[in-house]
């Protein structure tokens, strides 16, 4: 934790849409250490994707970013011009996305697309770039790299394309890899392979990773630390063990309970969190989860709770005291 790759303080992101202000992210702090894999979990619309896109300024034009600090590799990204930012993208922070099927240019060969990125970010010649492209494809487990570089994206399966994209992202040895739901569009067997691949490569290159997902299973399998987001705020943050074994927030608990387990009795229903996430155009004054929480008190609707610290790594944003939460959660069963 001493060696921070990314440090973000009170990040806010707004969208202006038809005269309305959508508050997608309402002040979050995130830190990523060297070689660390941090998971960001949350429902759809909790602001997780928007938050990471703000790190790389990849948001649409109607987005406004406000933060006290976004530091990456010793550079404060807030002061950079678009031109300087381009040098950060791909070199310092690389990103892979949800849908590998549409993430590659359909009319250019895989080889050329990889070479283009390598030439741009490393300033090597075409020949060297081609050799590097081949090496990367081999590294990410493409069976016939020689053939693959001549192929077009449509000739590859989704899993293969995601491998290509991971190769592309790692070709320039970035310090941080942001993976925005990299396995959501893939089937489960491929998902495991891709996650393993990310884990392996991170180990090898020492790259830090932010993994966005709404699958807690994925988090447990790959991540070291977890950030739970809801309604544009960070609800709870901690190591994987802390989040899974001693959750300190009712929302985290609700998420954990919603994981289906194999031991579930036949005919029992999947648990879900009742209700809907809050509107971000008109966010509630209090805790965003108050409406759906089973431990609500009056104060929950009036103000946003302070962040409580439970250990050097574990923080949570809830009015309930630690002991009370522990007592309340004691009886809960979920697949650990």
């Amino acid at each position: 934790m001493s060696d921070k790759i990314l440090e973000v303080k009170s990040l806010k992101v707004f969208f202006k849409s038809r005269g309305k202000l959508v508050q997608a992210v309402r002040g979050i702090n995130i830190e990523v250490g060297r070689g660390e894999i941090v998971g960001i979990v949350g429902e759809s619309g909790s602001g997780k994707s928007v938050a990471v896109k703000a790190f790389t300024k990849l948001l649409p034009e109607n987005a406004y970013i406000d933060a006290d600090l976004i530091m990456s590799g010793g550079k404060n990204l807030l002061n950079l011009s678009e031109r300087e930012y381009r040098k950060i993208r791909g070199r310092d922070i690389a990103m892979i996305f949800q849908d590998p099927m549409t993430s590659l240019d359909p009319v250019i060969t895989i080889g050329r697309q990889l070479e283009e990125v390598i030439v741009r970010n490393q300033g090597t010649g075409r020949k060297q770039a081609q050799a590097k492209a081949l090496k990367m494809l081999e590294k990410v487990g493409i069976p016939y790299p020689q053939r693959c570089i001549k192929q077009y994206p449509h000739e590859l399966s989704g899993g293969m394309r995601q491998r290509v994209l991971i190769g592309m992202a790692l070709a320039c040895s970035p310090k941080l890899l942001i993976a925005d739901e990299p396995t959501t569009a893939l089937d489960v067997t491929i998902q495991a392979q891709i996650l393993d691949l990310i884990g392996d490569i991170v180990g090898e290159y020492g790259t830090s990773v932010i993994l966005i997902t709404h699958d807690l299973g994925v988090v447990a399998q790959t991540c070291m630390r977890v950030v739970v987001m809801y309604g544009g705020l960070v609800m709870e943050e901690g190591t994987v063990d802390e989040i899974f074994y001693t959750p300190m927030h009712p929302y985290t608990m609700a998420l954990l309970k919603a994981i289906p387990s194999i031991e579930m009795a036949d005919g029992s229903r999947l648990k879900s969190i009742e209700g809907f996430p809050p509107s971000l155009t008109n966010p509630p004054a209090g805790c965003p989860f108050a409406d759906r929480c089973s431990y609500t008190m009056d104060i929950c609707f009036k103000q946003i709770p302070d962040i409580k610290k439970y250990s050097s790594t574990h923080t949570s944003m809830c009015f309930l005291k630690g002991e009370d939460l522990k007592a309340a959660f004691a009886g809960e069963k979920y697949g650990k």
Partner: protein
Amino acid sequence: MLRYIVKRILQAVPLMLLITIICFALINLAPYDAIDALTTPDMTQVEIDAIRQEYGLNDPVPVQYIRWLKNICRGEFGYSLLSHTKIKYDLMVRIPATIKLILPSYLTAYTLAIILGLIAGSCRNRWQDKLIDGMCSVGLAVPTFWFAMIMMYILGYKLKLLPFIGMHTIGKENSFTDYIRHFIMPYTVLVISFLPDLTRYVRALAISQLKEDYVLVQRAFGASKYEILFKHVARNVLLPLVTKLGMALPMLVTGAVITESIFSWPGIGQYFLKSVDALDYPIVMDILVLSGSLVIIGNLLSDILYCIVDPRIKEPG
């Protein structure tokens, strides 16, 4: 690939036949007797009947059709009813004249449209886009003939800069500068008339391409706006544009009917208009068949081109 092309050509044959049948039938249904063009009021009925017999106009319609079709297949396009010249020779002079006018204008408009469309699409809702899109709206709304006449009035009549009739000054048929001077005005009019539609098309394509995921991914890998626009978006936009190119083929014959007749350009459009006016039906039929065939050939061509340039289409059905 070859199989596909052969298959498409075979499919085109019945379509071509259908076009000839429709052309022939329509002209036959027209409330007009071809014999009127050949006779004079002082001829007797016997003479008229003799001419009718001679031209084969007493035969049943299908027989006439077959005879006409056979001739067309042999490259025999018949004679003009009015001037009694061979239509084939007329066409051989007039088609190149039209091509000389349309081809440069269409290609200019096409190239300009790609550039302007890409600029407008990538600067969506900014002043560049508003300017280009606004000009397109104006361009679409302005009738060709009006614009042509305004040009003639200002450049030709008022300022006396350019000649506004024909293709050459008599006696200067071989002078290139003279040709260019005649060429400028109709060329400009045509470019302006082709441009708005094509630009809008490119703009719409560019906008939809810029929304694609790969654009965001490229940005995430440090690509600049221009790299994305010219290396990736342009390529993806050009694919559907190839189709437009094939479909523009029939324009080589009928693309400038109005412009040609306004500038008295000795092309096929003007020829067509004159013969329709005079009910010179062999010419009308020939040109209809010709442009109909070009539509089919153009479509065939764009399909084939498309599967050559788009890697995603390998073995189309």
